[in-house]
């Protein structure tokens, strides 16, 4: 274990650690662009300069391994001067379009210039013009002028996704990132290149111009796209959730996540925003996506009242005539609470497990994405095991067919897209006298007279635990409330049982306290 001194602080690091890793460990400031902990070392931005005592030349921290007794500093005047000029070299051909650039606010150039910049630019010559707004693929937009050629994205496609779509073409200051014309950047991990891009050269087609990043808050959660359970940062504000980005977790996902998982954020917002019309006459239209209140057939009803009514009806019918359907999409706590209500309170054995596409469960793309697109399959199985329940699906359908089962409560899947059999199951189950479906999103097939819909919370609006494919338990925390009248399974179980659910308790963690009569831009008549 070599020991070294960084900026006067002693630190012991593992054999083979580079100086920049030691700096990161100490949480000391060090400028860098091309180095990324998840990628190989390129050593091209030349910003992580450090002075190693006894070495006349400045060294780059990313390619120098710590050796015992090294005395390293980046507070030296020589180093500071080198970094100042290094930044200026990065900026001489960088356009002045921060106002338009989507990266502004989370841009490496902005951040590092504030810390290490020279503040008196001497470049008085014309900048190199390159191509702007190039679609590299469905999801990624390139602006070559902003690119500082750190090669992170190229290394990502070479080393992580192994798809090799990107390359740096030409040479000198005419170098440009690009794809070969016939082969766009369309792999399932392409948006990671946007995350690792330290500047605004690569931006996400989806997130582009929707929000400025400084309007957004972020909180950590777990992706529900598949059983891998990648850790994510959820970016949200008052208006809703705007994007997911991967959060580092060495045990689960490292630095990355897949594009499919990122797409899911749009299903969380109560409204979907559409831009309609031609160039000048573009209008914004908002279409509801989430179920906003309880529905009893086509009649709208307060969701709490509906939940209480459901509880009463279930109790009236009693054990044999009712059934519960669960999926791997709810948290372990929800599943347990509702199952307990059925197994203990109602004394029912009719708890059924709805599996979506079992045949794909063992698929794995070798990076992150798994075939089992439920975040909590293991949790569901564990719950059934705990209560000793092992009913088969045919028992349910038989029961409905024969009229033994009159009322079915379905904890509907939050992500309906990964349930290709959604419609057929609704058809099947709605043969029962009453079908109660808790759902987060609207779905046409649920619009039936005997189907009661209870709005459910999505994973950003609840706390709980997901158990991933490897059996790792991951806690998710409450992030923001989006649909006021929705509950999670735990709350539903309490309401059905007849317990109180005080308002204050429900929204105790809400970052935005909802105040009546709030001014908004669409105020209408006074």
């Amino acid at each position: 274990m070599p020991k070294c001194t960084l900026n006067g602080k002693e630190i012991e690091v593992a054999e083979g650690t580079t100086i920049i890793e030691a700096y990161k460990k100490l949480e000391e400031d060090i400028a860098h662009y091309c180095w990324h902990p998840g990628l190989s070392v390129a050593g091209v931005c030349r910003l992580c300069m450090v002075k190693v005592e006894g070495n006349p030349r400045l060294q780059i921290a990313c390619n120098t391994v710590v050796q015992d007794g090294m005395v390293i500093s980046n507070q030296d005047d020589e180093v500071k001067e080198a970094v100042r000029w290094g930044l200026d070299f990065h900026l001489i051909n960088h356009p002045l379009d921060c106002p338009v650039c989507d990266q502004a606010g989370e841009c490496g150039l902005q951040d590092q210039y504030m810390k290490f910049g020279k503040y008196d630019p001497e470049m008085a010559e014309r900048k190199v013009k390159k191509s702007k707004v190039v679609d590299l693929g469905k999801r990624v937009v390139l602006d070559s002028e902003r690119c500082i050629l750190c090669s992170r994205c190229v290394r990502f496609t070479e080393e992580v996704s192994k798809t090799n779509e990107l390359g740096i073409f030409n040479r000198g200051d005419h170098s440009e990132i690009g794809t070969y014309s016939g082969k766009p950047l369309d792999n399932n991990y392409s948006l990671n290149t946007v995350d690792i891009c330290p500047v605004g050269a690569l931006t996400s087609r989806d997130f582009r111009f929707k929000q400025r990043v400084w309007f957004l808050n972020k909180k950590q959660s777990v992706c529900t796209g598949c059983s891998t359970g990648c850790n994510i940062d959820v970016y949200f504000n008052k208006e809703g959730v705007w994007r997911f980005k991967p959060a580092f977790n060495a045990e689960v996902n490292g630095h990355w996540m897949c594009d499919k998982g990122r797409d899911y954020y749009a299903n969380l917002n109560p409204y979907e925003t559409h831009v309609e019309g031609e160039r000048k006459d573009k209008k914004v239209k908002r279409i509801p996506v989430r179920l906003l209140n309880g529905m009893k057939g086509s009649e709208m009803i307060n969701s709490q009242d509906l939940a209480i009514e459901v509880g009463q009806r279930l109790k009236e019918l009693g054990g044999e005539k009712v059934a519960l359907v669960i999926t791997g999409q709810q948290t372990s706590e929800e599943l347990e609470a509702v199952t307990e209500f059925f197994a203990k309170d109602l004394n029912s054995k009719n708890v059924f497990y709805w599996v979506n596409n079992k045949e794909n469960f063992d698929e794995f793309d070798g990076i992150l994405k798994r075939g089992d697109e439920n975040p909590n399959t293991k949790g569901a199985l564990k719950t059934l095991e705990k209560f000793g329940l092992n009913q088969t699906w045919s028992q349910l359908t038989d029961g409905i067919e024969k009229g033994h089962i009159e009322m079915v409560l379905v904890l509907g899947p939050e992500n309906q897209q990964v349930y290709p059999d959604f419609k057929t199951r609704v058809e099947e189950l709605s043969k029962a006298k009453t079908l109660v479906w808790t759902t987060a999103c609207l779905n046409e097939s649920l619009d039936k007279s005997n189907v009661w819909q209870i709005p459910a919370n999505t994973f950003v609006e609840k706390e709980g635990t997901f158990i991933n494919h490897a059996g790792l338990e991951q806690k998710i925390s409450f992030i923001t409330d989006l649909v006021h009248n929705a509950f999670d399974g735990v709350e539903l179980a309490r309401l059905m049982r007849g317990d109180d659910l005080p308002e204050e308790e429900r929204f105790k963690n809400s970052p935005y306290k909802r105040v009546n009569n709030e001014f908004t831009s669409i105020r209408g008549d006074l």
Partner: protein
Amino acid sequence: MFKLSPEGVEFVKSEVARYESKESAIIPALYRVQKENDNWVPNEAISELSQIMDIPEARINEVFHFYTMFNKEPVGKYHVQVCTNVACAMAGTREILKDLCDEHGVKVGEVTSDGRYCFQNVECLGSCGTAPMLQINQDKYNENLDIEKTKQLLKDLP
């Protein structure tokens, strides 16, 4: 639409087998394409090479764009590459290049209307003792020139 000749495909395959890493064959393969396609490499050739050599297009494209000897656009029948580096510039090649361009009414790097010439300034070709010099396509060097000799040289081309 360019397509490599069967012999060309054979050549590329043999080059892939020739070197320890198959990527080493990219440069010889691109030379072959250039030879078969009037001295320049069309973009679609990259995907063909990618299929033959089983190397991602981006890797081949990177190499293709990095080296100056692969022409990205048509360069006429005679690609006249005039060295304008130190020794040759001192010997007056810049004036020769300007003269040639003016005479044919083209700018540096443009192909003449009859498709015969393209005049291009290039960096040192390693013939400084015999400056001024130029190279036509990838043939032997023409050395110890002056304006008259150069014009005669171009006239004598078939």
